[in-house]
């Protein structure tokens, strides 16, 4: 295929490098430096998609970030990505793209029937129509609408690309590398400031690449090139293209997305696809330029109708003609610049200018070039379905209300210019209250809110000389405040053509008897008539009109539609635009990929992984691991073809009959030192702590101030003023913060220090009737008899030369000990226990067996201490001291907490002694009761009792105290189970607690 619309020469593309690409299955060619859009236009392709609601044919409207139409599904390196703007996607060899939102194909689209039904699809259609019958929404309406609308398909494959995050600090962040960005960056850099200059396009220079100007005896483009190359050489400057500053957040934090590899066929090795920069800038210069506004007329969405600035950019940057028979429709001088470029390339455009008799240097030039100009003329409607083929034009009265006789003229594109809208998104996001500037019919930033300064076109200044002057000054002045340097820069000589005032006209009236759709929002198919309906139906606030009609709510966020929508509302409401106000600009400025936001924190990197010092032993011994908070813990040790159920039963049984060891390194450990340590514990725990002797441990429960149990664990008095606290694995960090809160803020008079020692100690629980015998082997020099080391006793010893702490505490309910050694000796300890335990049939046990053991003993853990229960509920009320105050005590008087039928922990056994009870199931009195069936409680934890060889669960049950012996039903709608059960004591094994003391 030849590139019929490519000029012989010109443009900034690399004509030496021809690239092939595929669009909707067909092969085309373009050049390096093209965008997908410019390459398609060069090949005469103008039909790229279907519109969102009416499925009308869609072409190209812009040449960059403002593009509302040309959204494609991209295929790159065996991956696919939706919602890609063809005007932003750079061409690479082998690029493949497809149209979206059309089925079966872009040329024949069944949804286009909506276009003929459009009188039935007015604003608010979805709200009005799909409300009834209610049940139809999920089954009929929603699936249909979802299939009919959309902007591509997200890949369901794992994204193998790498995305990076970078944190950066700078003196000045400059967003945009047009004339204002370049000038301010240059001045600031010369003053020694640390500057980041960001440009979202591949090429630097912004409007300088397309405008016919001269700076310091160079063309605008050459001047931009020389400034950029000088900036790139400076060590204090970071210059980034393909990088868009898309959000301005609190305290001068801006976020920028850098597309590192999207323009390449494949990401280079060790490179990320995209990089997200979090930039904390001392000062921010917003030089984001402006976007041309469309003019509104009939069928103004037909492919071939596009912004005049885009037509100019395709010509000057890509050497591509958007048409060979162009019509330029303008209300200001910008359209003339585009017409002049056409003329210079041998094309004869016709200009329709809505103004009566404008005069300026640019208009004179157009006249001198012999371009045909019709003043007081407008386009009434574009004609042609898949591409503009002609235009209905007419003379318009001076008051812009009456149209003259309609004439039809042939054309293959209509380039529109309705003047310029400053890009104020970043300024507005910083909190800047924007103001309406009448002279340009648009909003500009008001007083700076954070440290932001808006320059050039973004600030509503459209002459180059003024822009450059302001920007040099701003760069110099702002950097001087930071670096104290004052480097004077001589201001270059600027040659530009003067332009005349634009016409305050933007919407062509409908001719009599015609009902053309005049579109405001091209991406969401919002037409003038939709806004009219919304207002007629009583919507007044612009935010409501926006949501009702979806004006500006598409992925382009109304970059080309917002102001025209406001103009329309203000005209109908007879208010001035500033009184109508604009909707909120929210980040991101353009869509950002989820991958970039997530960065490297995916998969196993989504959180840190903590491993105990014995981890490698567990791995070698077939442990199957489970996530416990950020820790990896052995869930069970697989022998042969054992299942989880079989293995955990074997391990638990071995603890009950012989001896088992469990890695308990993950328990939170806090070292507490100081003369007031006992007093702190006494205030933190519900029970008494002042009289705990040295060498003894005690179990304690701590509450939050609202009376709810926060955590439990044992604390041991190591020496006079030294305690060792343990917390649950999950609450370790919270408990430390909690203690620090009280010590630093509430009771600073307490002389106590707390520090986490979780990672300093490796721990092994040795549990089972033979544990003492094993301990005797491990510590032959110590008296570990029941008298020498009684229940809740503590001693220090050495384990074959390694310092060890021995605690006689038990979670399993068996005779048990916990041995702690310094972490780097953990592996040695573990192997020693396994070695010496062989004669006692020692076996390691994982978290599953650990749970089984504690559940059948009725020991509570995280599933009972779930942030909703008080001590009473978990039968820990015996530990509440009546003789002292403690954190949360005052809350326990609350009526609900003292109610006589308060919930309490109970045991639950299925009547058939076979059916396992799903955790989280509800307990009800009557399984047949009509819904909603009253819930009496829930199952908090379930196990297979190894002692009784049947299922056993713990539950938190209303009036649990008086429910023992009752028959209830467990219901699990999720698992579709109804199980008749009996309520029993939560202490299913050894209810008197004799084993731990044996």
């Amino acid at each position: 295929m030849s590139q019929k619309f490519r000029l012989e020469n010109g443009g900034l593309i690399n004509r030496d490098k021809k690239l092939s690409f595929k669009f909707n299955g067909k092969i085309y060619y373009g050049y390096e430096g093209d965008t997908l859009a410019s390459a398609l236009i060069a090949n005469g392709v103008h039909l790229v998609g279907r519109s969102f609601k009416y499925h009308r044919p869609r072409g190209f409207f812009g040449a960059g970030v403002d593009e509302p139409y040309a959204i494609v599904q991209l295929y790159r390196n065996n991956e696919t990505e939706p919602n890609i703007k063809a005007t932003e996607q750079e061409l690479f060899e082998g690029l493949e793209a497809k149209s979206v939102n059309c089925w079966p194909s872009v040329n024949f689209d069944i949804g286009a029937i909506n276009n003929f039904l459009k009188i039935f699809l007015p604003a608010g259609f979805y709200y009005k129509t799909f409300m009834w019958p209610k049940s139809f929404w999920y089954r009929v309406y929603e699936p249909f609408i979802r299939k009919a609308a959309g902007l591509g398909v997200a890949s369901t494959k794992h994204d193998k690309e790498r995305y990076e995050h970078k944190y950066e600090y700078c003196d000045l962040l400059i967003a945009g590398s047009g004339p204002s960005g370049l000038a301010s960056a240059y001045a600031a850099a010369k003053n020694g400031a640390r500057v980041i200059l960001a440009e979202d396009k591949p090429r630097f220079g912004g409007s300088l690449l397309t405008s016919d100007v001269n700076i310091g005896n160079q063309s605008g483009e050459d001047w931009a090139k020389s400034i950029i190359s000088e900036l790139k050489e400076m060590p204090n400057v970071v210059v980034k293209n393909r990088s868009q500053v898309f959000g301005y957040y609190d305290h001068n934090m801006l976020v920028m997305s850098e597309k590192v590899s999207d323009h390449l066929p494949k990401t280079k090795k060790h490179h990320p696809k995209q990089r997200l920069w979090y930039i904390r800038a001392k000062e921010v210069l917003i030089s984001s330029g402006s976007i041309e506004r469309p003019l509104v007329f009939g069928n103004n969405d037909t492919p071939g109708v596009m912004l005049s600035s885009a037509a100019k950019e395709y010509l000057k940057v890509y050497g591509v003609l958007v048409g060979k028979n162009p019509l330029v429709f303008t209300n200001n001088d910008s359209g003339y610049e585009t017409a002049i470029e056409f003329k210079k390339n041998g094309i004869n455009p016709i200009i329709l200018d809505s103004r009566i008799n404008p005069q300026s240097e640019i208009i004179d030039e157009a006249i001198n070039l012999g371009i045909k100009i019709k003043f007081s003329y407008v386009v009434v409607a574009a004609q042609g379905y898949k591409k503009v083929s002609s235009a209905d034009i007419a003379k318009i009265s001076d008051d812009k209300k009456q149209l003259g006789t309609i004439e039809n003229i042939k054309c293959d594109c209509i380039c529109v210019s309705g003047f310029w809208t400053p890009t104020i998104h970043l300024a507005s996001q910083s909190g800047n209250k924007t103001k309406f500037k009448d002279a340009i019919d648009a909003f500009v930033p008001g007083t700076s809110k954070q440290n932001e300064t808006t320059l050039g076109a973004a600030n509503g200044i459209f002459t180059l000389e003024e822009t450059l002057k302001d920007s040099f000054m701003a760069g110099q002045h702002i950097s001087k405040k930071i670096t104290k340097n004052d480097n004077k820069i001589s201001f270059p000589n600027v040659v530009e053509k003067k332009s005349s005032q634009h016409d305050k006209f933007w919407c062509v009236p409908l001719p009599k008897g015609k009902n053309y759709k005049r579109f405001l929002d091209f991406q969401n198919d919002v037409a003038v008539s939709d806004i009219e309906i919304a207002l007629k139906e009583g919507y007044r606030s612009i935010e409501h009109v926006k949501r009702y009609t979806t004006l500006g709510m598409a992925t382009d966020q109304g970059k080309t539609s917002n102001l025209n929508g406001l103009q329309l509302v203000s005209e109908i409401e007879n208010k001035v635009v500033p009184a109508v106000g604009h909707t909120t600009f929210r980040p991101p400025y353009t869509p950002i990929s989820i991958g970039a936001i997530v960065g490297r924190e995916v998969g196993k990197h989504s959180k840190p992984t903590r491993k105990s010092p014995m981890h490698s032993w567990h791995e070698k011994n077939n442990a199957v691991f489970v996530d416990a908070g950020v820790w990896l813990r052995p869930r069970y040790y697989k022998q042969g073809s054992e299942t989880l159920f079989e293995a955990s039963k074997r391990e638990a049984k071995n603890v009950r009959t012989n001896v088992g060891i469990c890695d308990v390194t993950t328990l939170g450990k806090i070292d507490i030192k100081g003369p007031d340590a006992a007093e702190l514990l006494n205030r933190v725990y519900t029970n008494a702590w002042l009289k705990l002797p040295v060498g003894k441990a005690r179990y304690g429960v701590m509450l939050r101030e609202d009376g709810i149990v926060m955590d439990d664990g044992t604390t041991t008095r190591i020496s006079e003023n030294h305690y060792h606290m343990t917390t649950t694995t999950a609450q370790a960090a919270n408990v430390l913060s909690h203690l620090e809160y009280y010590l630093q803020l509430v009771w600073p008079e307490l002389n106590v220090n707390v520090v986490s020692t979780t990672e300093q100690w490796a721990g092994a629980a040795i549990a089972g009737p033979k544990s003492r015998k094993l301990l005797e082997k491990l510590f032959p020099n110590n008296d570990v008899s029941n008298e020498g080391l009684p229940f809740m006793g503590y001693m220090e010893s050495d384990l074959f030369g390694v310092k060890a702490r021995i605690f006689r505490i038990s979670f399993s309910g068996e005779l048990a000990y916990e041995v702690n050694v310094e972490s780097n000796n953990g592996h040695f300890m573990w192997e020693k226990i396994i070695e010496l335990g062989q004669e006692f049939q020692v076996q390691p046990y994982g978290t599953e067996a650990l749970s089984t053991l504690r559940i059948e003993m009725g020991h509570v853990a995280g599933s009972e201490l779930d942030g909703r229960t008080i001590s009473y509920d978990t039968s820990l009320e015996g530990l509440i001291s009546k003789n002292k105050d403690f954190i949360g005590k005052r809350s326990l008087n609350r009526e609900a907490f003292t109610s006589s039928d308060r919930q309490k922990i109970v045991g639950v056994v299925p009547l058939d002694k076979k059916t396992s009870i799903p955790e989280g199931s509800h307990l009800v009195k009557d399984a047949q009761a009509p819904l909603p069936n009253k819930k009496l409680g829930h199952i908090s934890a379930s196990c297979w009792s190894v002692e009784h060889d049947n299922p056993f669960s713990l539950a938190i049950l209303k009036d649990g105290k008086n429910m023992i012996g009752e028959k209830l039903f467990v219901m699990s709608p999720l698992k579709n189970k109804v199980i008749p059960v009996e309520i029993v004591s939560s202490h299913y094994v050894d209810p008197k607690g004799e084993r731990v003391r044996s």
Partner: protein
Amino acid sequence: MLHIKCPHCGMRSQNEFSYGGDASVKRPELNKEISDEEWDNFVYNRKSLRGKHLELWQHLYGCRQWIKVERDTSTHEIFNTYKADEEIS
């Protein structure tokens, strides 16, 4: 993301800190008889005001100190930060 000046460490990003609520709340003294209303005011009732707010933050991934931050809840402007025991005029 806020930029918070830890009085012990200097300017740090918000993600090093955790929020700790209204700093003007004072815990009733231990062992003191107080009314239900007083206790509720301490545990539950907060103003949730718009504007200048003295609040607690902990420099969790830093010096672990609890600090007081005077912040505007609507603009996020931070006026001043104080050490836990610092007198606030």
